[in-house]
C-alpha cells in the first residue's frame, strides 16, 4: 500500500508544522525548511507509517533568481510501501549556499553530496569528506582563482579557456 500524502504530512507535522506540497503527474514534492531537514529525514526514515529507507538521489537546482537561488532536491523511496517522494529544500544564501549534510540520516548521501558540491558549490555542513567529485581538484578560473561550479547558470557552456589543461601536442 502506497503511503498517502496526508499520512506523510501527519508524520512531518510535529517537526515542520504545515508542510507545503506540490503534486505533479502523481509525484509528490514536500517543501522543507533547511533547519528541519535532518530531523524530518530521520522521522521519514524510521516512522513505521512512512519507512523511507532508501535514498535514491540528491541533486540541486540553480533557479538563478535573487531569493532562494539554489534548491536542494532529495528523492526518497520506501521499499516497504513502494512509494517515491521528493523533498525540496530552498537555500537562502546567494553565492555560498550551505546546507546540513544528509549523511547524518543516510550514509549513501556522501557521494551524492560530493557531486552536488562539485557541480553547484553548495557546502554541506557535517559532511565527512567534502571534495570535488568529477572535476579536477584545482578547477578554478585561471584569471581570478575562484573555484568554478559548472552546473551553475552563470557558468558558460563551453567552459572557461585555460581552466582545464590538456597535454601538449608536440612535447619538446
Amino acid at each position, binding site marked *: 500500500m502506497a503511503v498517502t500524502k496526508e499520512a506523510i504530512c501527519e508524520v512531518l507535522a510535529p517537526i515542520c508544522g504545515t508542510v507545503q506540497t506540490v503534486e505533479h503527474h502523481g509525484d509528490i514534492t514536500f517543501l522543507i525548511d533547511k533547519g528541519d531537514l535532518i530531523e524530518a529525514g530521520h522521522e521519514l526514515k524510521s516512522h513505521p507509517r512512512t519507512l523511507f529507507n532508501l535514498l535514491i538521489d540528491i541533486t540541486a537546482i540553480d533557479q538563478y533568481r535573487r531569493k532562494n537561488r539554489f534548491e536542494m532536491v532529495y528523492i526518497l523511496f520506501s521499499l516497504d510501501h513502494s512509494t517515491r517522494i521528493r523533498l525540496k529544500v530552498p537555500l537562502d544564501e546567494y553565492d555560498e549556499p550551505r546546507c546540513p549534510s544528509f549523511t547524518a540520516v543516510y550514509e549513501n548521501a556522501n557521494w551524492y553530496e560530493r557531486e552536488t558540491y562539485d557541480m553547484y558549490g553548495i557546502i554541506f555542513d557535517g559532511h565527512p569528506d567534502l571534495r570535488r567529485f*568529477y*572535476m*579536477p581538484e584545482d578547477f578554478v578560473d585561471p584569471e581570478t582563482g575562484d573555484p568554478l561550479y*559548472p552546473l551553475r547558470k552563470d*557558468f*558558460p*557552456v*563551453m*567552459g*572557461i579557456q585555460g581552466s*582545464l*589543461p*590538456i*597535454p*601538449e*601536442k608536440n612535447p619538446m
Partner: protein
Amino acid sequence: MGLNETLERDGFVVTTIEAIAKWAQKSALWPMPLGISCCAIEMMALAGPRTDSARFGSEVFRFSPRQADLLIVAGTVTYKMSWVVRKIYDQMPDPKWVIAMGVCTSTGGMFRSYSVVQGIDQFLPVDVYIGGCPPRPEALLKGLMTIQDKIDRSKPTIIDMGKPTLSESLLTA
C-alpha cells in the same frame, strides 16, 4: 607473374628492405583498444566473426600499449581523460598510428560542452578520422585499410637497434 610462380621457378625473390618492412608493418597492425565509451562496442565488433579484422592481420588486440602500434581511440575524451590518452599514446613504441573513432573523438560530437575535448587532434597526431555515432564496424575496417594504404605510400620507419653488445649476444646464444 605472381609471387608463387616466381618462387617456384627461382626459389627466391628480390625486393628491398623498405618494401619488406612496409609489408610487415601494414599486415600486422596490432591495435590498442582505448574503448572509453559507447563506440567501444562497435570496435569490439571489428574483431568479431562478421567484420573479422583477422583478415587484415589486426585481430591481436593488445591491452598493453607497449605491444601495440595502432591506437584506436573509441569514445568521448574528457579533459580529465585526455592526460591518460596521451600517456598511453606516449607509451606505444614507434612507429605508431592513431584512429579517431566516432564524432566524439574527432570533434567532440554532440558533447559541445565544458568537459569534453573538442577533437583529440588538439593533443594527439591523428591519422584517420571516422565519422558516425557510432561508426559501423565496416567503417572502422575502412579506417584500418586507409592506414594500411598510408603505410604503403610512406617511407617506413626502420629503427636501427645497433649491433648487439657482447653480453646480449651471449644471452641470446
